[in-house]
């Protein structure tokens, strides 16, 4: 799979994920954060302009695809991205992706940072 195919597959896995889909949403954002050996995944659902609610997908396959995406987007001679942000706008049927290489701490989700980050990654 190339980058676009992987992105489509990640979005599909989010949409069909039983946990992420347990309540309706019109927007969804997934943050994949990679550190030294450790990676973290956090998801947020959005509905009718309400604040983002933490709701991380349950399926492990999404992590497999993200790791494939990290390989597929790796540029020789450059460190791989540290954070990948996938945003889904359901009404517009749009999927957007952003990568962070320099400052992964901006997207490190903790109980203290979750609300702020959820607003910053809200799908347009």
């Amino acid at each position, binding site marked *: *799979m*190339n*980058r676009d195919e992987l992105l489509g597959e990640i979005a599909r896995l989010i949409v069909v994920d039983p946990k992420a889909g347990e309540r309706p949403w019109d927007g969804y954002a997934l943050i994949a954060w990679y*550190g*030294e*050996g*450790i*990676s*973290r*995944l*956090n998801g947020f659902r959005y509905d009718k302009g309400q604040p983002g609610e*933490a*709701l*991380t*997908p*349950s399926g*492990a396959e999404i*992590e*497999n695809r993200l790791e*494939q995406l990290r*390989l*597929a987007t*790796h540029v*020789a001679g450059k460190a791989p991205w540290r954070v990948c942000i996938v945003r889904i706008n359901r009404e517009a049927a749009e999927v957007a992706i952003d990568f962070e290489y320099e400052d992964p701490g901006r997207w490190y989700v*903790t*109980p*203290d940072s979750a609300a702020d980050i959820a607003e910053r990654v809200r799908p347009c």
Partner: protein
Amino acid sequence: MTDPLSFRSADVPTAPAGAPPFAGDDAATVLSPAALNALPLAEREILANGYAERLGAAELHALRGAFGDSMDRAVNERSGPAVREDYAGRVAAETREIEAQVINPDGGEINEARWTVDEQGRPVHAEATLRTVFSELERSDAETQAQRDAADRGIDGDQGGHVFGHRFVTDQGLKNLFPQNGNFNMGAYKTLENEWAAWIDQGMDVRIAIDLGPRGADRPDRVRISYEVIDPADGSRVYDQRVSFDNRAGQSYDRVDSEQMDELIAARA
């Protein structure tokens, strides 16, 4: 250097120059497990994709031990429906599930766990709902021996690490043990378990799913954990997180502290 963006489904897998063929393989392009492990993941996946497009389920299943999860993904993406179904049946037949309930005699709370083990009894997946923490438990001689046996499947520096900590599920033997880097076991993993214990002390349930990969390996190199904290009073979700670790030293885990737990619990009120 291989450009991971350049491969196509039409690529025919070939063994890199100098790589030994896998004994007995009629395709003559399959590498030994050691040679496969030495390949970059992208090249391994190219090989797996090629086989998935042209081999039958029995042959693909026979290669699963060498390719692990890469072959599962390749079959799902590249094989036809009949091969996929046959392959999935063969994979399912490799594993079995074992359940356990552990009751705390003091309060009556029950911790429930279910392990999926492979044909050699090695855990590949596990799920649990934890409601209580056992303190000052003695480990049986059998459990201590099982820890040594699990560690012996690993490499220097490994311990027999519990999938679910002994304080949660007591003596469960090899189905709950894997070769785990000692620093990882006593560091990041223990920190995560401490967080789960603290959630339980707050009266919450902790639901956990753990995947050890790749399948078929004596020593997992990746531990994937998904957990969510549930308030048993109303079934609402208080917190959730997915975190994955390499099975190696030098990692840290930033756990949720008690003050943050109080705030998360209060925020739902």
